[in-house]
C-alpha cells in the first residue's frame, strides 16, 4: 500500500499548485486575491455533497452524460489491427467536451455569488459552452476570441451571439487563442471584483489546471467503467488530442495509475515540426512562464513566446497544461504529433467510415491512431477521445478538401 501511494500519479498538484516544476501562480498581484478566493471556494465545493449532486444533475439531464463508448466497427476493420473504441463526447450538448468543465465552473461562480462571466475561446467550443451555461444560469457572458478565429469559426460566433454572449474580437498578437487569453486576463484584472473567469482548458494559474482536470475527469471515469463492462478489461492504449490539454487530461487522469495502459497525447504538428509552423509545445518547446503557470512553451532564445500554427483553432496554442508537462517529464504519457494534412485525411475517413463528422481537433488524435493501430493485434483495445463534432469546421475543411480533389 505504501509503495503504491508513493508511485501514484494522483498526488499532484501540491499546495502551491505545482505539478513537479510546472504549474504555480505566476500572475499580477491584482489577480492574486481572486485566485486565492477561487481556490478556497473550489475546496469548499469539493467537500460539499450538494455541489456534487447539483453537478451530477446537470451532467445527466443537461449535458447528456454518460456519453457512449462506441465500438467503431468499420474503422477497426479498415485499419485491420486493434479494436477501436470512440468515447463519444461530441454527443454532449453543444457538441464538445468543453461543457463538462463549464457547467462545473459556472456552478462554482454561482456559489460564489458572481453573475458576470468571462471566457477565452479558440475554436469557439468553449465560448459556446460558456455562453450556454450563462443562458442557463442567467449570467452575463463576455467571450474573448482572436480575430482570426472569429473568421475561421463563424458558426460558433453566431451561436454565441444567439445565446446572448458579447464577443470581443482580439486583434493583438496573431489574433488567436494565446492573445484571447491575454486579453481575457487583462479584462479580469480590470473587473476583478465583479467577474468570474471560466478558463477553458487545464492551463492558467492554480487552481485552474486542477479544477478543469477534475471537471473533465468524468470522461475517463466513465470510459474506464464502460470498457470494463464491454470487454472485461482495461484498454491497451488511450489517445487524445491536445490543445491546452483538457479533453486529454479528462480521459487520462483516471487511467494514470493503470500502469499497463499506454497513454498518448497528440499535439498539432501544423505544417510539420521541422517547418517551425506547429503548435507542439512538448515536442518543440521548452519550459517557461505564461498565463499564470510554468509549462512547456513555444518560445525563442530570449524567452519571447512564438506563434503557434494549426489548421485547428482549438489546438492553436503555444503552451500546454502544466500537468501534461509533468507527465511528459516523468515519461508516464507519450506525447506525439499529427500534421494538418494528416488530420484532414482522418477527418474525412471518420466521416465516411463511421458517419461521424469529427472536429478537426480529435481528427489529430485519429490521425495518430491510424499510424499505429494497424500494427496492433486484433485482441488489443484502443480508446480515442472523440471530444468534439466537426460542424464548426466545415467552412474551413470543405474548400481544402475540394482543392485537393477529395470531395
Amino acid at each position, binding site marked *: 500500500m505504501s509503495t503504491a501511494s508513493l508511485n501514484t500519479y494522483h498526488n499532484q498538484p501540491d499546495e*502551491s499548485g505545482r505539478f513537479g516544476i510546472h504549474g*504555480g*501562480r*505566476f*500572475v*499580477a*498581484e*491584482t*489577480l*492574486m*486575491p*481572486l485566485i486565492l478566493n477561487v481556490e478556497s471556494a473550489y475546496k469548499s465545493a469539493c467537500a460539499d455533497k450538494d455541489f456534487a449532486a447539483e453537478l451530477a444533475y446537470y451532467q445527466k439531464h443537461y449535458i447528456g452524460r454518460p456519453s457512449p463508448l462506441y465500438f467503431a466497427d468499420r474503422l477497426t476493420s479498415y485499419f485491420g489491427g486493434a479494436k477501436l473504441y470512440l468515447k463519444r463526447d461530441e454527443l454532449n450538448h453543444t457538441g464538445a467536451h468543453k461543457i463538462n468543465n463549464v457547467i462545473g465552473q459556472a456552478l462554482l461562480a454561482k456559489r460564489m455569488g458572481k453573475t458576470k462571466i468571462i471566457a477565452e475561446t479558440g475554436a469557439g467550443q468553449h465560448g459556446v459552452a460558456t455562453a450556454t451555461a450563462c443562458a442557463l444560469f442567467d449570467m452575463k457572458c463576455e467571450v474573448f476570441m482572436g480575430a482570426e478565429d472569429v473568421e475561421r469559426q463563424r458558426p460558433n460566433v453566431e451561436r454565441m451571439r444567439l445565446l446572448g454572449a458579447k464577443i470581443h474580437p482580439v486583434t*493583438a*498578437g496573431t489574433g488567436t487563442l*494565446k492573445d484571447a487569453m*491575454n486579453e481575457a*486576463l*487583462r479584462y479580469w*484584472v*480590470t*473587473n*476583478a*471584483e465583479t467577474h468570474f473567469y471560466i478558463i477553458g482548458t487545464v492551463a492558467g494559474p492554480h487552481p485552474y489546471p486542477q479544477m478543469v482536470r477534475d471537471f473533465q475527469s468524468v470522461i475517463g471515469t466513465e470510459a474506464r467503467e464502460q470498457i470494463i463492462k464491454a470487454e472485461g478489461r482495461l484498454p491497451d492504449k488511450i489517445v487524445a488530442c491536445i490543445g491546452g490539454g483538457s479533453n486529454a487530461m479528462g480521459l487520462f487522469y483516471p487511467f494514470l495509475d493503470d500502469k499497463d495502459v499506454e497513454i498518448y497525447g497528440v499535439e498539432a504538428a501544423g505544417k510539420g515540426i521541422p517547418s517551425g509552423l506547429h503548435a507542439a509545445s512538448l515536442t518543440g518547446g*521548452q519550459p*517557461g*512562464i*505564461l*498565463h*499564470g503557470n*510554468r509549462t512547456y*512553451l513555444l*518560445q525563442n*532564445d*530570449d*524567452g*519571447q*513566446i*512564438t506563434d503557434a500554427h494549426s489548421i485547428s483553432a482549438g489546438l492553436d496554442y503555444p503552451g500546454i497544461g502544466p500537468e501534461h508537462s509533468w507527465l511528459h517529464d516523468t515519461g508516464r504519457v507519450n506525447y506525439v504529433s499529427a500534421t494538418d494534412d494528416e488530420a484532414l485525411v482522418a477527418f474525412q475517413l471518420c466521416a465516411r467510415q463511421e458517419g461521424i463528422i469529427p472536429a478537426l481537433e480529435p481528427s489529430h488524435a485519429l490521425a495518430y491512431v491510424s499510424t499505429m493501430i494497424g500494427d496492433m493485434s486484433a485482441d488489443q483495445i484502443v480508446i480515442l477521445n472523440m471530444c468534439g463534432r466537426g460542424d464548426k469546421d466545415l467552412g474551413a475543411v470543405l474548400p481544402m478538401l475540394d482543392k485537393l480533389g477529395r470531395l
Partner: protein
Amino acid sequence: MTGRIEKIFANAKAAGRGTLGVFVTAGDPNAATTPALLDALVGAGVDLIELGMPFSDPMADGPAIQAASLRALKGGMTLAGTLQIAADFRKRHPDTPLILMGYYNPIYIYGNDRFIADAVTAGVDGLIIVDLPPEEDTELCLPAKKAGLKFIRLVTPTSDETRLPAILEEASGFVYYVSVLGITGTKSAAGDSISAAYQQIRSQTDLPIVAGFGIRTSAQAAEAATLTDGAVVGSAVVDIIATNLSDTPQNGINNDIVQKVATFVCELTNAICK
C-alpha cells in the same frame, strides 16, 4: 551604505516634495534612441527610471505598453540588450536609480542566477516583476535581494488588509501602489482613493510608497506625489513615442521623440517641485 533609491527618497523628503519616476521600454522606438531618452529623463530632473524589459505577452499592460514592447522586440531588443543599456546608463549616471520592470519568462530563460549577477554588475538598483507574486518568492525575489537588488512590490486596489502583510513581507526599495484596478494606460485614478490606500499601506510599512498606473498629466502627477511619496508616469510618455515614430532612423536616434519627451517630463518635474 545607503542605496541610490533610499537617497532620492530622503533628498525629496528633505526638499518637501514627492519623487517622479518615469517608465520607458528598452528599445522603443529603437535601440539607439533609448540611451538618449534616458539621458533626457535625467536632464529633465526625474528621480528614478523604470526601464521596461520587453515581453511578447505583457499580461498587465494596456495597448500603449503592449505596442511599445512589440516595437522593441521587432527592432531586435533582447534581455541581454536591455542589461547592456542599463550598464551603459550607469557609467554615465552614477546617482539615478534604475529599476528593471517586466515579466518573468525572459529572465527565467536567460537564467535567474545569471540575470541577477548581470543586473548587479550593470548597476541596476531594483526589479519589478509583474507576474511574480509573493507566493513565488523563492525563485527570484529572495536570491535577488540577497545579491543586493531591491524587489519592489505592487500593491493594488484588490490588496486588502489581509493580503497586505504577504505582499509587504519581502518588499524592499519602495512600494508601488497601482492606483487603478486594471492594466496600464487606460483610466485615471481618483485622488481620494489614492489617499485612502496610502494610509492603509503606510500603517503596515515604513518603505516609501509611490503611485502609478493611470497618471497622465502634470496635475495628476503633482497630486499623486503630494498624496504619496512619489508618482510614476508610463503610458503618457510611451504615447509620445508612439505618435512621433515617423522619422525614426534605421539605426540612429529619433531626436524629435527625445525632445518631445524631455519637454513633457520637464512639465512633470516642474509641477511636482512647485
